[in-house]
């Protein structure tokens, strides 16, 4: 068994134990009983002290959800999910239940953090170590919060935003991903527990990269989080999501919704590094990562750029998309998807060109190893008014070994004769020549594979903010451990 699989496995064992204990002691207070009903939703809404309109919206979504089935057109198949088995509300793990210090955290987990070069303080946050008052008072999060407030940026948990700026939440939530978009988005609308809210006022360039790292209160965000980012006219924000370490997530299904809105001349850069638990070498366990992410480029000259590095999860099923409404608006999608062992991914993007002279660019790099299988699925749609719209798509697949699969399914629909759509695709394997060449220079096999794959992904890695790029590069290597030899 490879080092990574071992680590993840140990982490998993640890989390199972924790879960049992946690469940028994907390059941009366912070965890809703398993099952999904109107009662559950009222319970969640009440816990969060939500306004009536939000409860009504949740209930509307729930009523609709009961009438629909999960889609089944995707390539990765999985057994029907029993939604009544899960618990839909569990308060963030109480600090007092968490490990008291890094000494109590599984050393294997720490070794992985170290490999990723994650600073000690972040390691503590990721591992769920109780953060004491002294630490908290000097925490980066607090410092940043003050700086952001000075700029007028609102960056807080969405449940807090509901209290602080309900009019913004009410106006925009569900406006990009409607509650009836797809069954997972519908479920999320009914039961979402928390997530991030960002508002960048007119003309403000957000003074720092916003990252979930710095949201201490959010590190144990539930599996149904909801993120809403609004960039008002002429503003700019770069948002980093996710975490580059194996997270101890108790639940199987992760169904998040992310909505981005860019007004005139605004730009949003959204980067994700996803490394949820991928299951073991035989495909047992792991997260179903079924996320709906969509951006509306509503304003003229607005721009949204999605960058994703997807290395975790048993199944990744998502299409971060852009609806290009504003004239001259720009949508970009840069993706690296790595699957190893029995992982499966069906991912890509949708670029919906509605405004004139809109342009989009799609660069997708898929790496399959082990017995994994992945599909790039993308839609480029040129609406009839999208005069002069352009798209460029490049899909490259790299296969490691002879038991994995890669598929490319591009859908192109054009209703405008002046629109231009380009699609390029390649499939290659890591050659034995390349590996031998690198090994002959003293580089061990796993590092050699990581080097070649990093080279293959370079165009996408370059899109990531600097500090993220370094972690992502290391993650590429770690994800592929045990894929050769």
């Amino acid at each position, binding site marked *: 068994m490879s080092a990574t699989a071992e680590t993840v496995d140990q982490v998993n064992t640890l989390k199972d134990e924790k879960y049992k204990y946690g469940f028994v002691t907390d059941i009366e207070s912070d965890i809703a009983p398993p099952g999904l009903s109107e009662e559950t939703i009222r319970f969640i809404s009440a816990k969060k002290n939500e306004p009536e309109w939000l409860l009504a919206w949740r209930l509307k979504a729930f009523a609709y959800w009961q009438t629909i089935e999960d889609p089944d057109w995707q390539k990765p198949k999985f057994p029907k999910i029993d939604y009544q088995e899960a618990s839909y509300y569990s308060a963030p793990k109480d600090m007092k239940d968490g490990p008291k210090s890094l000494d109590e955290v599984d050393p294997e987990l720490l070794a992985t953090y170290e490999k990723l070069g994650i600073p000690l303080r972040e390691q503590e946050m990721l591992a769920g170590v109780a953060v004491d008052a002294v630490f908290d008072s000097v925490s980066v999060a607090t410092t940043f919060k003050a700086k952001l407030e000075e700029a007028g940026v609102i960056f807080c948990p969405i449940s807090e935003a509901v209290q602080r700026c309900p009019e913004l939440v009410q106006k925009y939530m569900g406006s990009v991903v409607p509650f009836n978009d797809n069954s997972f988005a519908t479920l999320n609308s009914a039961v979402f527990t928390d997530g991030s809210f960002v508002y960048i006022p007119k003309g403000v360039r957000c003074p720092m990269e916003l990252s979930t790292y710095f949201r201490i209160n959010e590190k144990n965000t539930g599996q149904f989080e909801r993120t809403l980012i609004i960039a008002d006219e002429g503003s700019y924000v770069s948002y980093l999501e996710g975490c580059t370490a194996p997270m101890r997530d108790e639940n199987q299904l992760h169904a998040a919704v992310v909505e981005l809105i860019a007004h005139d001349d605004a730009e949003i850069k959204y980067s994700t590094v996803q490394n949820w638990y991928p299951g073991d070498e035989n495909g047992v366990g792991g997260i179903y990562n079924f996320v709906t992410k969509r951006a509306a480029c509503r304003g003229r000259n607005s721009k949204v750029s999605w960058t994703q590095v997807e290395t975790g999860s048993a199944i990744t099923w998502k299409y971060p998309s852009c609806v290009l409404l504003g004239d001259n608006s720009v949508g970009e999608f840069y993706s690296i998807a790595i699957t190893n062992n029995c992982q499966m991914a069906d991912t890509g993007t949708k670029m919906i060109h509605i405004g004139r002279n809109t342009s989009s660019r799609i660069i997708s790099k898929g790496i399959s190893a082990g017995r994994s299988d992945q599909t790039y699925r993308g839609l480029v749609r040129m609406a009839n008014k999208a005069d002069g719209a352009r798209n460029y798509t490049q899909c490259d697949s790299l296969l490691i070994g002879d038991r994995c699969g890669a598929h490319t399914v591009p859908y192109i629909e054009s209703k405008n004769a002046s629109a231009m759509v380009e699609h390029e695709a390649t499939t290659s394997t890591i050659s034995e020549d390349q590996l031998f060449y690198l090994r002959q220079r003293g*580089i061990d096999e796993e590092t050699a594979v990581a*080097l070649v794959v990093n080279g293959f992904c370079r165009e996408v890695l370059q899109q990531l903010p600097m500090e993220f790029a370094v972690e992502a590069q290391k993650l590429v290597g770690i994800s592929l451990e045990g894929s050769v030899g």
Partner: protein
Amino acid sequence: MAMLEIENLHVTVDGAEILKGINLSLSGGEVHAIMGPNGSGKSTLSYAIAGRDGYDVTEGKILFRGQDIVDLSPEERAAEGVFLAFQYPVEIPGVANTTFLKEALNAIRRHRGEDELDAMQFVRLLREKVKELGISDEMLKRAVNAGFSGGEKKRNEILQMSVLEPALAVLDETDSGLDIDALKIVADGVNRLRGPDRAMLVITHYQRLLDYIVPDHVHVLAHGRIQQTGGKELALELEKNGYAAFTGNTEAA
């Protein structure tokens, strides 16, 4: 003790025996040339020394500084000080030459129990080497061998050798695909790296490379065996008479 001592080496590729009992001994400071017709097993010998998968040693030993390296992985052999300059250097798209060289050097240093070089120290070292070999900075920034001309690829091999400082360098058909100017530059780079602590095995089909890299000993390889050994004048003889005397009409290896 010899730097490289090959004893009765038999190597099989895809079930066919290509090398049928090679004996060879190189001491530090020596340059040996292996010459032979196409298909005689020259490249097989170089891959067997470097430990490439699929080149199975069925009999015999490869002693490097007294240690049999047959069971070592390619990277372990490299770290011990075995270097192969490839006939066809491989392209690694997206990986900067500098990144690759630093990764390689530090892997070898780690193996030797030496401290890794940080970015600054490495750049300093690289500048020095590059200057000696007349290689442009621009070539360092480009992806490994990607879009390099034939001459640039071979010069890049020599640069790697100069950075990694191996005890044994095997140069596999380093002259192939080079015009005379490029050949001179490459040969000049190799000659700079000659020294008392380094042995070189120069594999070539043609004599012309040996005008520039003058060997101490020349061996003729045909049918998987060393057929004749002599001084540098043997290469000239071969140039004149060809390999006919060694190939005859017998089996082609």
